[in-house]
């Protein structure tokens, strides 16, 4: 019986010991991924921002500019790309919709972002675009990979359509969550006019004919939870100018937009709660389960060996028999 128990314990010990590396290095990269049908929204606000009034072509301070960002996974498109990409792919259709204080549209920029569901590496396929222009991303966008490292990453900038380093600047605590702080500065760069302009009748082509060009600079800041790679907070010090041409009436430049764009408070709270929940799942697969299994495996093995040793211990000497009394004959 003891022998049988030790064999069962040995099987369980090997099961646990094998499970530890398998969960960490085989299951985790396959199971931890962005769902193809993800749908999420984000609201950012720039208070006391500067905004161009296209009626008078002058910049004015407005109480608030709101940016509504939606990301929506296209499941059919991701399944189609997966057939040739040979990995799990996510296709996000995004829209950055900017609204002025009067509720009117300031700009709307759609984009399609295709990436590896686990590593976040960009996947190049037909349809990858920003505002209708085909692009080729070389960096991440919106989210960092699972198990984010303390190093610089290439981050795609949708305005300039280029990928540039976003620098790791240190580890911080953000509302009880350990985060890595990243920062990227895009210097003044000439960028394309948005395809959809805020005033009817004005198109990028009509603006181009006046010789006026659009320039942009930004300082992008992200606080990223390293296990999930999800930003819990983001800010952007964003400036846009129109320069030169006949549209400005002889002025060299005019501010089109300037503001410190921050996540709205209710979205910050929602994101922190969501990331805390997802962080626990990642932690289970990368740390709790592997280390727990390894410890349990070692304990079971020790118990199995102990039982086996006890089973093999030779039996004690037989009880001493009372010496037979010698018969003495007289």
């Amino acid at each position, binding site marked *: 019986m003891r022998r049988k128990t030790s064999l069962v314990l040995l099987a369980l010990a*090997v099961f646990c010991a*094998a499970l530890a590396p398998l969960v960490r290095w085989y299951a985790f990269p396959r199971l931890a991924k962005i769902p193809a049908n993800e749908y999420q929204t984000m*609201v950012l606000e720039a208070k006391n921002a500067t905004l161009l009034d296209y009626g008078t072509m002058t910049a004015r301070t407005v109480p608030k500019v709101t940016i509504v960002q939606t990301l929506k996974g296209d499941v059919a498109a991701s399944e189609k790309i997966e057939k040739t990409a040979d990995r799990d792919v996510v296709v996000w259709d995004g*829209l950055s919709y900017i609204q002025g204080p009067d509720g009117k549209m300031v700009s709307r920029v759609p984009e399609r972002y295709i990436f590896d569901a686990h590593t976040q590496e960009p996947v190049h396929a037909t349809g990858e675009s920003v505002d209708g222009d085909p692009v080729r991303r070389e960096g991440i966008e919106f989210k960092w990979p699972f198990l984010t490292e303390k190093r610089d990453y290439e981050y795609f900038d949708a305005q300039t359509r280029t990928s540039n380093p976003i620098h790791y600047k240190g580890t911080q605590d953000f509302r009880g969550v350990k985060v890595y702080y990243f920062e990227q500065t895009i210097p003044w760069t000439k960028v394309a006019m948005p395809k959809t302009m805020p005033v009817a009748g004005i198109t990028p082509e009509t603006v181009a004919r006046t010789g006026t060009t659009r320039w942009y600079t930004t300082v992008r800041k992200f606080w990223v939870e390293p296990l999930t790679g999800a930003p819990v907070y983001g800010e952007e010090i964003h400036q846009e100018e129109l320069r030169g041409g006949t549209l400005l009436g002889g002025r060299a430049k005019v501010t089109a937009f300037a503001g410190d764009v921050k996540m709205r408070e209710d979205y910050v709270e929602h994101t922190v709660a969501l990331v805390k929940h997802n962080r626990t799942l990642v932690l289970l697969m990368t740390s709790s389960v592997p280390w727990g299994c390894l410890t349990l495996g070692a304990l079971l093995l020790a118990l199995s060996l102990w039982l086996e040793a006890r089973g093999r211990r030779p039996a004690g000497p037989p009880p001493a028999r009372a010496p037979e009394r010698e018969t003495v004959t007289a």
Partner: protein
Amino acid sequence: MRALIAAATGLAVALALVLTLSAIGTPAGKTSPEPLLTTVPPHP
């Protein structure tokens, strides 16, 4: 010999479990019917 069989059984079960779970994975689901927003949502 019996110890070897017990160890192999434990290893085989662990492999089978992890391979099966990884192969099943998570279902892709369907594309959300929600639109790309052009209005400011009141809450997340």
